[in-house]
């Protein structure tokens, strides 16, 4: 997948998780305190995966 496509998908995923009404979902009572960190970590993980795949492709 081209770098631009991956970048846009990652960015939109980030917007969806942290700049949309979805923030109301993960900040509702009853979820563990570290939920936002998990989502944040997941997003970072996707970014790392995209980077590593890109590097392998470059090789």
């Amino acid at each position, binding site marked *: 997948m081209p*770098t631009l496509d991956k970048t846009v998908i990652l960015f939109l995923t980030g917007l969806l998780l942290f700049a949309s009404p979805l923030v*109301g979902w993960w900040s509702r*009572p009853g979820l563990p*305190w*570290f939920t936002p960190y998990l989502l944040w970590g997941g997003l*970072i993980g996707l*970014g790392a995966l995209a980077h590593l795949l890109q590097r392998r492709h470059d090789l």
Partner: protein
Amino acid sequence: MISEIGLLYAAGVAYLGLLFFIAHATERGWLPAALVRHPLVYILSLGVYATTWTYYGSVGFAQSEGYTFLTIYLGLTLAFLLAPVLLAPVLRLVRDYQLTSLADLFAFRYRSQLTGVLVTLFMLMGVLPYIALQIKAVTESVSVLTQEAPPNLLALGFCATLGLFAILFGARHITPREKHEGLVVAIAFESAVKLVALLLVGGFALFQVFGGPAGLGDWLAAHPQALEALNEPVSEGPWSSLMLLAFAAAFLLPRQFHMLFVENMDPRALQAASWGFPLFLLLLNLPIPLVLWAGQARGLEIPPDYYVLGLTAGDGAGWLALLTFIGGVSAASAMMIVTTLALAAMCLNHLLLPAHVTQQSLPQSNLYGWLLWGRRLLILLIIALGYGFYWLLEFNQGLVQIGLISFVAVAQFLPGFIALLFWPRATRIGFIAGLSGGILMWLLALILPLLEASGLPGLPLNLAALMGAEEENRWAFATFWSLAVNSALFVLGSLLSRPTREEAEAALACRREQLPPARTAGEVQSVSQLETHLARVVGPQTAALEVERALQDLDLKATERRPAELRRLRGRLERNLSGLMGPLLARMMVDNRLDVAPQTQVALADSLRFVEEQLEHSTVRLRGLAAELDTLRRYHRQVLHELPLGVCSIAPCGDILIWNHTMSTISGIPAEDAVGQPLESLKDPWEGVLRTFINGDDRHLYKLQLSVEGRYRWLNLHKAAIESSVTGDSAAHGLGGMVVLVEDLTELHTLESEVAHNDRLASIGRLAAGVAHEIGNPLTGITSLAQNLRYEQDPAEVELTVRQILEQTRRINDIVQSLITFSHAGEAPRPLPAAVDLRACVDEALQLVQLGGSGREITCINGVPRELRARGNQQRLLQVFVNLINNALQASRPGDRVTLTGARVPGGVEVRVEDEGSGIEDGLLDQIFEPFFTTKPPGEGTGLGLSVVYSIIQDHGGTVYADNRPEGGTCFRIRLPAAEEEVMA
């Protein structure tokens, strides 16, 4: 509590000393280069983003705004996820054009001194309180630990130490090409200290205060309001506005810009940072809720901003409290050092230097030293200003509030930054109007209320309150209105004004679609002239160094005179000077002093190379039709370069534009030495040959013999004019010129020579019997005469017999000499053309042919006039006549005659060889000169004779034709250039 303030002071000094040592060790190369340049070091150095606001203030922020404190890092994460499209192009620009700050970047794009001044002043206004905040955080942290007011000397000493560090390790080199590795590693170390300290405090909170995760779970179950307090503000607070502010701050804060772009040592590290840096921030923020809840659980009676410190200090963990304090010093010192360096670069390039250049007071010697010390003094001045703010402002607002004021300030650069990358239509007027509007809104919405709250004189005006915004929404209000006014004015101003030519060029450069450099009236024609002109502005020493550096960068020699290369050199000088004194002054100096290359056509040489380079670098970005066209271009270029013909294209001004592989092989001149060069610079004989051919009327030149590097080459040259219709609209760029194709015939010629030689050997073989017979007769005579001589007593008879023997010997010698001459004909080295007596040559040929014994019943008549002379090679012409006479004899019947006649004709001489044989079929007349063509049965003829004739006559610049005679038989007509005396006659 740590009661000894001296201990804290000593720890702080020791820690800063350690920083000095790390930076020094890096600069001296004591640390391995692989470590220094590792992406992890780059990622950690970006941790300068996390100041005391993050380190101390996040807990307080979390307490008041819940998980909203995460927006400051989530916004940055989104910005870093966009690194390939948002940050990488800027990094490339900064590296390519050696820009040292955000003000440089905007001044480069919007091409205005006012832009640089405005950005610098506003950045100072926005960031100085933030520096003051760091000083306050350090002194308050001492106060929290010692429970007493810190001495005034502490803040001053802290500032002085940081100033010294910034000067020693951040202002070591004046050019941005040389990175401050010591600074980068030291800042990375500070980030590592911050991270370790905060994680330890988080661990302390979890395991010491709550007794582990289970204890924390129990405490949260018992206090559900604690978690609710974190969650609730997410949906209600200024979440989106803060995300946007953090998104902008990620790369627009001076310290971020400096570490991200200016001190970047390897562009690939940015890819790793796109996820590595957000991960660092996640780890840094993970302990924040734990520390907050631990502080609440312990009932700490200090502001939540300092829970990080108070939690460990109040629980007997003295070492951890000390480490936490050191972490706070790290956060403050890193921010202050890097911000100060970035601001100093801006002030130098956009405030100090323009003033000196305007007054023409730049030093003529040691400009580097002047710039370096200028930057160092500015560093001290900025730190002093920060210290002044610390004294002036009564910070009764939290750490986060002051930080956010800075964030809103730098967010005002966001429209200009986005337009720089994606909107070429944006103009300086739009940018200045938008930024001014944004600054005004920022002042009204945030600064005036701050001054009022700090008790300083100012207008009692609170815009947010006036417009009915609630206090808790003031960040959203300030962010929205300042950016809305900014963007609206920016767009409006840009649409109502026209970008200047310089702005349009810069816009294309920012999008990596730069057009060829502007054509200016030229005056500089050599490197030394370039240096002399530059020396008038920056002094001889600096000029010499800069020119030498630029020459090294481009791998050019000081003797360079090619206009296109001088133009590249000028471009490189501008970029290097930009690193020294900013893009505007560099452009001004270069434009005013270093005009080169007057002709439009030079731009063509530039354009071709430039377009090639651009396309080579931007392949990954081409899509669709553009990608298809690029593939086609590459294919055509490859065809051109791999063509087995030499291709050389020459611009109308005489500059060489294309020089393909074959041309390099034939000429021995590599393409890199030829392309861009004027034709005159080619070594002999190429300059003369190409120039004569291009200026001549002939479109083709055949079998040109050249001596190249000690060996002969035979070439065919063809030329064609490049019409403007071929190049279509690009004619506006001054296209045209000439393309020359060079065909190397050397191998073919060698082959032909071998064929001719073989033909001669075959003839000699055929002659062998006749030769034996011819030699046998005189030998018999000599034998008889010698026997008679034995008995002869009369001296007169003896004398006669000896004379006869010598006569017979001469006959044998003549026969042998003729054979030797014939067999050696055509072997290199060839004698120069000379006047050839054609009658004598025909005589010799007839004698040779008769040796072969053929045609004994055929009469051969040599009717060539005695005075007829041609210019040529006698040995080779002998072969021509031998072949033609042989051919005629073989076609003749017994009793026929073979007649050779000659005459002068216009432009030369003509020899006719006529026989009375059967003639040649009309359909075959066109083919008889082709190699291996024969009408004889297989095994009786090689088919080479007439092709050799054709080849030799061509080499002599003559012609040969064959016709059937009306009365029967064939007539071969040879035309040759007349010898000079023949022409004169």
